[in-house]
């Protein structure tokens, strides 16, 4: 009898330890790190999200969001100013807000931005965001820190999707950090330098939150759409920060995204002087150069998950 019990415990232990729960998402070493731009796209988009119908769409524009460049250190126009102004409405980040508006001459705008992003990264809010490729978007690094492709995800227009292991319970704001990227060989004979017009691209970005519809075994998709000039100077240090007050955007629908458990992003390149499809005059032989959206961070500051 005792032997049988011991056998059962041992079998249970063996079963438990043969799970491999953290290796569901495995990649080859060096994947997404290639010197060839075209090999670094991340294209995982769960079919459950692709097939989910668009329930409602919200336009994000200048009236209900702020948009800036991380390296804008002008105290009045820097993204962090708008972020702290908005956060302040919810009684969040009181200390940072006061510090920012204290009139201190030596205030380091970039330093306070870094502190804010590091504190409010999703990885800090819920440990479930520390696992998987998606954790590149939850680590608080909103721009390149010197480690190149380590910190961002390179996206095609079809984009990517991610189903979370938790549901969004409470929320106030949302932040996305991204930039444009190309494989144009700047500095060569045909492309000796970037012109001002080439340093940006007009891009239509769609990002969605999904709420599970258990009755129909599908998701309700709530999509946010915005058209922006995206920095495309191939400098990883320079990223755009889009910051949204969800209440301003959703208005009476604010509660619709409660229990959201998935996210996706896709885009359409509308205009760039050199790149297809809207490029004005691509040089012969260079038609195949591409634009990619380099996605650095997704934040839902002060959100709670269950």
């Amino acid at each position, binding site marked *: 009898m005792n032997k049988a019990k011991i056998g059962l415990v041992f079998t249970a232990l063996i079963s438990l330890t*043969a799970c*491999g729960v953290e290796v569901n998402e495995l990649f080859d070493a060096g994947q997404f790190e290639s010197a060839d731009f075209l090999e670094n796209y991340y294209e995982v988009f769960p079919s459950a999200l692709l097939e989910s119908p668009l329930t409602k769409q919200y336009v994000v524009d200048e009236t209900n969001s702020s948009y800036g460049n991380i390296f804008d250190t002008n105290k009045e126009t820097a993204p962090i100013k708008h972020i702290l102004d908005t956060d302040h409405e919810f009684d969040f980040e009181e200390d940072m807000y006061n510090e920012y508006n204290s009139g201190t001459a030596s205030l380091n705008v970039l330093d306070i931005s870094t502190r804010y992003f590091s504190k409010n990264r999703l990885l800090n809010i819920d440990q479930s965001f520390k696992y998987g490729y998606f954790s590149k978007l939850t680590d608080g690094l909103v721009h390149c820190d010197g480690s190149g492709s380590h910190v961002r995800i390179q996206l095609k227009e079809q984009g990517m999707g991610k189903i979370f292991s938790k549901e969004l319970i409470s929320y106030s704001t949302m932040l996305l950090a991204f930039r444009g990227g190309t494989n144009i060989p700047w500095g060569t004979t045909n492309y000796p330098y970037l012109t001002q017009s080439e340093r940006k691209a007009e891009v239509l970005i769609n990002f969605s939150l999904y709420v599970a519809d258990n009755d129909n075994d599908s998701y309700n998709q709530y999509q946010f759409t915005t058209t922006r000039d995206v920095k495309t100077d191939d400098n990883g240090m320079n990223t755009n920060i889009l910051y949204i007050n969800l209440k301003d955007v959703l208005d009476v629908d604010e509660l619709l995204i409660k229990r959201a458990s998935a996210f996706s992003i896709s885009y359409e390149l509308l205009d760039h002087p050199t790149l297809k499809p809207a490029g004005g005059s691509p040089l012969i032989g260079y038609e195949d150069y591409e634009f990619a959206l380099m996605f650095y961070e997704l934040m839902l500051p002060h959100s709670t998950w269950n």
Partner: protein
Amino acid sequence: MKKLRKDVIGNMEEVKKQEGKTFVENNTSLIIFLFLEVLFFLTFGIIKADSIMRIIGVLLAVVSLPLALPLLRDAKTKIPVLLALGLLFIYGVFTAIAPMISFNNMLTMLSLLFAFVAFFILGLTLARLPEFNVLYALLAILAGVALLVTLSLIITFYAYGFLHIVLLKGKVIYLAGDFYQVSAQVKWLFGFDVRETNLNVASLNIGILLSTVLPIIFYLPKDKTKNKYIKIALIAIAAIAALATILLPLPNVLFYLVPSLILVTIFRFYPKNDKWLKIIGYVFLGVFGFAVFIGFLYAFNVGFIVQAIDAIPLVNRVFAHPYVGVWLKTIREMFVYPMGSIESLEIIGFSRYSYTTENFLLDTLRHSGIVAFLMLAAFILIAGKKLFVYVRSDRDTPLIRSLILSFLITYFVLIAINYPYHQLADLSANTRAIDYFSFARSELWLVSLFLLGYVYLSPVKQSSIEKVAPLINVPELEENAHE
């Protein structure tokens, strides 16, 4: 109940006897129990309050000091004991003030300053207590490691499955935005946290457990220990190690066991002093010392040495190996940072730029400077010789002596070649760790110091200790025994 006059007088005499005893002698069981707990929690590391454990060790050493004082009064033991304590104290001072140790943490500094001496003293003093059985101390140490290994492996298998080191070779996973090779890591328990660590951590702990296998095979069946639970515990510890080696799998760890296997086998078949073995040992030591000397000269680019080494293809290949290259770099830099590297100040958030020599002596050279390195090297040489004297003595049973020999040799081989300085990620602190495995703060190092202290005075047989350095009131105790 009416007390007889004889009883009252007997009680008074007992009290008088106790007044003459040291605190340790009056509370032997308590002190031993407390210390066994310290050993268990040090190796298990559940609290991960390494400073607290070190301080408890220091306090226990302070209360047991009266037992060590006779050793300092005796002419035969005075010099070797003072030498060892002096070396460890100076090593402790230079370690405590090293730049790699945070100056902001006074508790860590103070605990490091005294811990090395304290654990060595505990080994010296507890060895003199008749009530102390070192087998229980060994079991406490090994049980702590075994529990740590077992829990860590269950978590590892839960996360990565069995045989992940082989099956997932070349695959990476992402953690907190960074990628890690699955086959190069295991999950490990740190206090109440689980973190991702490199394989060296597993090798060190599993290697320590595996070191018990050969002594068990050679001596356990014939050992006079009547307590069957001790035997079961030792077999269970060896079984856990074997299972871990197979299921990860981690066959490389067997390589580190070779020296201890050889020495335990020699001890088994040549238990007495053998002139030829001694000569072979000294020759081996001489060759090793010569190689180290040449290594130092090569590191400093002494012309004729470099030319000589470059001319011998095999030796040249060894010195050109990246692994040895790191050792040479460390030696070269020793005069740049004579008090220890300031690397920790530069790499606070990016320890990936830091490096380890994977050798405890050279890491000491980098972290704590030249003086600490020299003191430690001298101590290891002296204590190493004492270990072999102990093995040839008749102090303990052959099982205990071979277990201690195997444990210490395996430990020092592992930390000489494969010291696990870094863990892969320290996600809870949001930075990569830089000091979690520094040798000075290693729990197993303290445990080894205790064992080295225990074996240090072996030439003085237990039966003759009282003659050399009498314990207070020992005659009375013996009289009582006769009555």
